[in-house]
């Protein structure tokens, strides 16, 4: 009954931090695409505070987008744009990186309340994501992150240092920025594992990417201590950090905990993702949630070719 070309990006239906998708569920997805851009471009760094009064905990809701002028934002069809405000709960994703690492690998899939008016959403809509432990209020007292993948000036030691210093560092590795962390991971370099910040460096923050370093060692399923002999001589002030592996759902990712406190983390908005489609997960009898489907079909009539595509799936 749907007129969509089914060839649109979909999230992988793998077991996730929040478990398997449930029969009858309606999910907003951000799938992975060969025409896409890296996830980092969709992250908000530094993360933004939740507007006061927004009651979001476990209550996904639609929100009409406004222009900075206060006027309603309109899409190319002249229709008002509604976004989805979504709480990524700590009960399933203890740490914000749990969720982001999962999205990197399998795309995003967030369950929606079928009572939401899904017909309001169009291809211009976005998922605005919030996690309870995102804004690091103690960033000025803590060490800068090893790297800020958005390369926000002043966020990490490299970005806070002079341009000359940055240039030298790049020449030393001779690698693309994306592969640098990996080479560090496999321990071929004797470079400092923790940046040493010059007191004179202008710092900005808080950096979203510090969150990886704040995950406690105890949260790892596997922790590997790197021996001095394995990395060679460390520069003065450098610290050898354990390599920790954390498993969440189908995701296994690595982090290097600094042992700094997470007590200073407060809720914040950390990402704005496109909605590439809706997934209607079938019940055992092959049917789907009709109430949700009706609203999506209503959205089709309202938004036409600008409507969000939908598909039915068994998982």
């Amino acid at each position: 009954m749907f007129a969509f070309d089914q060839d649109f990006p979909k999230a992988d239906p793998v077991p996730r931090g929040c478990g398997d998708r449930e029969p009858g569920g309606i999910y907003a997805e951000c799938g992975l695409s060969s025409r896409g851009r890296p996830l980092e471009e969709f992250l908000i760094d530094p993360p933004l505070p939740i507007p006061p009064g927004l009651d979001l905990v476990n209550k996904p809701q639609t929100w009409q987008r406004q222009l900075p002028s206060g006027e309603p934002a309109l899409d190319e069809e002249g229709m008002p744009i509604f976004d989805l405000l979504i709480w990524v709960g700590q009960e399933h994703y203890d740490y914000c990186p749990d969720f982001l690492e999962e999205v990197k690998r399998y795309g995003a899939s967030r369950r929606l309340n079928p009572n939401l008016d899904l017909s309001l959403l169009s291809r211009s809509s976005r998922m605005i994501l919030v996690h309870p432990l995102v804004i690091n209020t103690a960033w000025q007292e803590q060490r800068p992150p090893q790297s800020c993948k958005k390369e926000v000036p002043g966020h990490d030691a490299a970005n806070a240092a002079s341009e000359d210093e940055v240039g030298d560092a790049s020449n030393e590795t001779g690698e693309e920025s994306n592969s640098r962390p990996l080479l560090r991971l496999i321990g071929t370099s004797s470079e400092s594992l923790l940046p040493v910040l010059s007191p004179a460096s202008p710092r900005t923050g808080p950096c979203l990417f510090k969150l990886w370093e704040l995950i406690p060692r105890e949260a790892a399923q596997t922790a590997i201590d790197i021996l001095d002999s394995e990395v060679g001589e460390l520069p003065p002030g450098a610290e050898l950090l354990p390599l920790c592996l954390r498993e969440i759902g189908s995701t296994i990712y690595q982090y290097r905990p600094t042992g700094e406190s997470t007590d200073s983390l407060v809720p914040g908005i950390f990402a704005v993702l496109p909605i590439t489609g809706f997934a209607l997960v079938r019940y055992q009898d092959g049917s789907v949630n009709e109430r949700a489907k009706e609203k999506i079909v209503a959205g089709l009539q309202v938004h036409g070719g600008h409507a969000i595509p939908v598909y039915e799936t068994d998982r």
Partner: protein
Amino acid sequence: MVHTLPSVLTEQDEDIREVTPANAVLLRRLGLEALPEHETMFVPTERLIVAGADQLARSAKRLVKSIQHVGILQNPSVVMQGGVDIHNAEATYEVIAGRRRVLAARLAGLSVVKCEVYEASTVQLSALLALIENEQRSAAWVREVEALRCLIDEGVGMTLDDLAAFGFDRATLAERLKIAQLPTPLLDRVLSGNVSREVARKLVRLTQAQQERVASLALTGAEITAESVKDILRAQINTGLVPVQDALAQGWNTTSSHLPVVPDTSPFLAQPQREEQVDQAGCVDKECMQEACQTASTPSLSSLLAALLAFEHCPDYRTSHQAVQTLTQALVQQLRIALRDAPPAAQPTVQPQSE
């Protein structure tokens, strides 16, 4: 300061003997002039019959802690069900009002409960008591707010933890406490019953400045409606979302006709093919593994990925330490991301070992 808690923590336990004007109307409608005579007695818990105990068990558990701390503050109402008179040792009683309290008392280990005992019940009496209980339950939040305000005004140093220790829901208490701290003109409206719970809940979500603004309106006699508070709240949240809206307006072209831009998935598409190749090559022997590892010695992410995938298919992998397996899986996932994110021109290719 425990003595002040009863008024704070009594959620639904009003003494039903008090006939308020509203209850008097109910009485008259039910054809009753007054509540029937009754006696206050200690009744053994095993002689109390609680209808629907299974449905109430969960909510009754929440009262156990407070009963252990301060006992039952308002007597349940019961009516004699079996026996010749209420003083008969064989008499049993059905609980009409306060079923949760009785269940919680049992869970708390109390052997007797002080009850208001009615000798005989009528349909009207049961209905009346049930109605009064429901009415009191729906208005209880206002009394809680009032009591919390008293604690604040008297400077009682209690924390939410202290209050929660009595077994009451922390989120509910936190909400009541916020309501109790509303500016006086708004709190007065709450306490006088002129503001619904729904509106009060929205009021506490306003910033202090916005609350003061609404309070000023209240002082002028303006009606505080759900709609007006909702509008103010919406405007407040929109203001807070401006940085996100800015990012959306500047960062991404919202009117693009293209599919939303999302991370590149080409390595995912290529992955099954690579694994297939590994399987076809029968990569379970060490020779193949060594070959793959030799390939990995070149500075190439894809060759490293191939080596790790090959390793995952080797018998050595299955017998290796769990940490090695986990590290391998983590590296495979990370390599796929790294390959995906690398610009096409920069994607390394597998180079032959000898040229």
